[in-house]
């Protein structure tokens, strides 16, 4: 176990440094800098220069990189040049929004994905299973900006049931927060739910084909009981392995969802800062997401390891 953990951790570190270099370079390739964007077209060269010095953008690139990594590791995310506020402070309000959206979308995705995946697995040899499979394909391919717009057009404009966008903090009014969360969660959750449907279907079909399911049935277990007590549990293993996949889907999707529904979350914050070329903040925020994905994958590896007892012997 400890060797396994050590090796995974090493892989984690390597991935961390490689992505950090990639992000560092990419952010600089975009071009532009916050000074010119912030001050507008009519700012003085002196002011621009002053800001560049203030941000350390005048220093050698290698030094800039190491300074960044050291600050990042010590939890100092710096000050957003765009807003003049500390990034940590901004994150404190942005992260709960993104997490709420992610959890909401995951709940929707699981509520859609598991039942449909199971039904489609059980009916996999029948027409209804094929139809479900077809719809899950559509769900995967359906762009969020399209499904999201349809949702707000119908539930927001036509029926007037739910807000078309915006956000109310949990501490202010949690009923309102929930109302604001419904449509974006569904918009984001449909796609992920479809992905889950497909994974659950494959995994359950695969498990239900196993001999031990037949063994269970040979001793008086009904087909449905076998499905729920053996099929789902054992299918959870392959599903856990795609959790990383699902999380990257989530992260990618929240950028669009947060923009579409005007939610002040992490992704929106990144987008705003990319537009204003606040590169120091952008690289920090992107790195936070990278670390988040790496940690999720790390946890997935460990949980896979602990779920599958066979791995430990091998």
């Amino acid at each position: 176990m400890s060797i396994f953990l050590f090796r995974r951790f090493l892989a984690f570190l390597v991935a961390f440094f490689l992505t950090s270099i990639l992000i560092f370079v990419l952010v600089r390739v975009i071009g532009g800098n916050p000074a010119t964007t912030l001050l507008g077209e009519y700012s003085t060269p002196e002011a621009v220069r002053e800001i560049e010095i203030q941000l350390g953008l005048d220093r050698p690139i290698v030094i800039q990189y190491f300074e960044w990594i050291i600050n990042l590791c010590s939890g100092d995310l710096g000050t957003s040049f765009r807003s003049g506020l500390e990034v940590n402070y901004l994150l404190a309000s942005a992260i709960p929004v993104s997490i709420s959206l992610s959890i909401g979308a995951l709940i929707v995705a699981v509520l859609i994905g598991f039942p449909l995946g199971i039904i489609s697995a059980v009916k996999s040899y029948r027409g209804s299973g094929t139809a479900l499979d077809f719809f899950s394909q559509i769900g995967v391919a359906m762009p969020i900006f399209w499904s999201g717009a349809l949702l707000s057009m119908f539930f927001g404009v036509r029926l007037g049931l739910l807000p078309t966008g915006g956000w109310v903090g949990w501490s202010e009014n949690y009923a309102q927060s929930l109302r604001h969360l419904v449509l974006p969660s569904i918009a984001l959750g449909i796609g992920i739910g479809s992905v889950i449907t497909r994974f659950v279907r494959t995994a359950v079909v695969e498990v239900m084909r196993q001999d031990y399911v037949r063994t269970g049935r040979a001793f008086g277990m009904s087909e449905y009981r076998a499905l729920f007590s053996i099929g789902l549990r054992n299918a959870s293993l392959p599903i856990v392995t795609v959790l990383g996949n699902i999380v990257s889907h989530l992260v990618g999707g929240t950028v669009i969802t947060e923009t579409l529904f005007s939610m002040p979350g992490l992704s929106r914050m990144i987008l705003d800062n990319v537009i204003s070329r606040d590169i120091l903040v952008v690289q920090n925020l992107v790195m936070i997401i990278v670390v988040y994905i790496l940690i999720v994958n790390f946890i997935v590896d460990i949980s896979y390891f602990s779920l599958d007892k066979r791995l430990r012997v091998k």
Partner: protein
Amino acid sequence: MGAKKRHIFKVLALVISVFTSVFWAGLSSASSIDTKKTSMTLSMFQDPGRLDVVTQAATSLILWIPGNVYEPLVSFDSSDKPSPSVAKSWTVSPDGKTYKFEIDESRKFSDGSKVTAADVVYSLEQFKNGPILAYKGPFANVSTIKATKKNEVTIVLTARSRGFFRGMGTMAGLVMPASSEGKRNSNPIGSGPYKVVDYKPGSHIQFEYNKRSSAKKPAITSVKVRFITDSPASLLALRAGEVDGLPITSSSIWSRISSEGYTKDFRKILKPASGELHWLMVNQKLAPYNNPAFGKAIAKMINRDTYVAGLGAPKGAMVPQCGWGIMTARTFKPASKENCEIDYNPAQGMKEIVAAGLGDQVFEFVGLTDVPSLRLSADLITQQLQSAGLKVKRKDIPLAQYSSTIFNSRPPAYGLSLMGGSGTLADFVCLDQQKYGYQTYCSPEYTKLMQRADRATSDADYFKLISEANTLLQKDGVVIPLLARTGLGLYNKKLMGWTPPTIRVEIRLSDFRWEK
């Protein structure tokens, strides 16, 4: 018989009086203010990120903060007449070089502190030494700003300057307490009718009536400005009634606004030109673009009407524009036969290009990729130039790169480029090449004209000189004005009271009201 007649008159009079009273009642109720509705929600496409007017010049900020949270030293009405504001009176020395402003001590900031002469000095110094060039302009001739009494600020100029006094009614003249230093990004404090009670980056700004303000209590005391960056989403929010108005709609949804009946279902407001221009910029330091024939020939190849139509804006949101220097509505005139000195004549333009020996030359035209309104514009311009027979190669760069190139390279790399924004005549003044203006153009003749205009003693003189400078700019083929964005706002039909901006492009929240 006579009695009967009288009777009929009586009835008639009664009928008429009842009818008129009902009619008047109907009329008055139709235009009466809904006093119960004291809040509104407006939407904005961009989050300014920070609310400090000294360091941030984004339209998304200027729309909300200057006219509502702050008050200028002097205020100018739409006919450019000055009236008291933070300064309740002022005197000017006969040579026009010394201004004494008497500060209205009864005014209070939203934090409760009194507005003092020291605060005014502090504020003016902020803009004078701040990073935004446009706000420094009015202080070009200012030598000292001093609080000479507790309630008196004396400003000494090196030369008479119209720009200075006019500037005290714009951004450069906004007054803020010295104690707000370092806090303006999230908590701007001013003496205006509103105060910011909550600013959630990426989400909204919440304004409430500032009880300490000396302004009249507005009909709408609570205003939420929501940031909805996705344009279709903002239209949905308007349809759903979550938002009562979209002050300036992004040009990317113009076609939707027209086709989906928004201009029918909502009140459409086209604001008068307030400095939002599109123009072509010709580099005067880069061959062969600096050939005087080039700019003039190009101007003949652009059909402004076709260009405006091509952008798909609702009628009136944009107008063809020949003139320049339209910072105030007063000097703004849409393009017409009379004021357009250059006729649309692409064949003649191409002839001039060939005559100048540039017939085989391939020109580079630079458009900006990340400003959607300018991207379509660049397509339209390229099309027009190419159909005139000019060899044009399109080059797209992001705005950030464009501005950084302008600042860093001398001369700039681009020969012909499309610009958008609040270009002003002052931008082309080059007192000091290092510091001012577009590096693409520096004409001593032009600079002298503009300085003379600044020192003009009468309005007539001033406008005559400005007009001369404008002509010179076009004669030199430096700028080719294309259009003026008159702006577009969509509002709930019951939300009334929009007024034209006076400080810059601000929206005065205190003028709005709900009708019953």
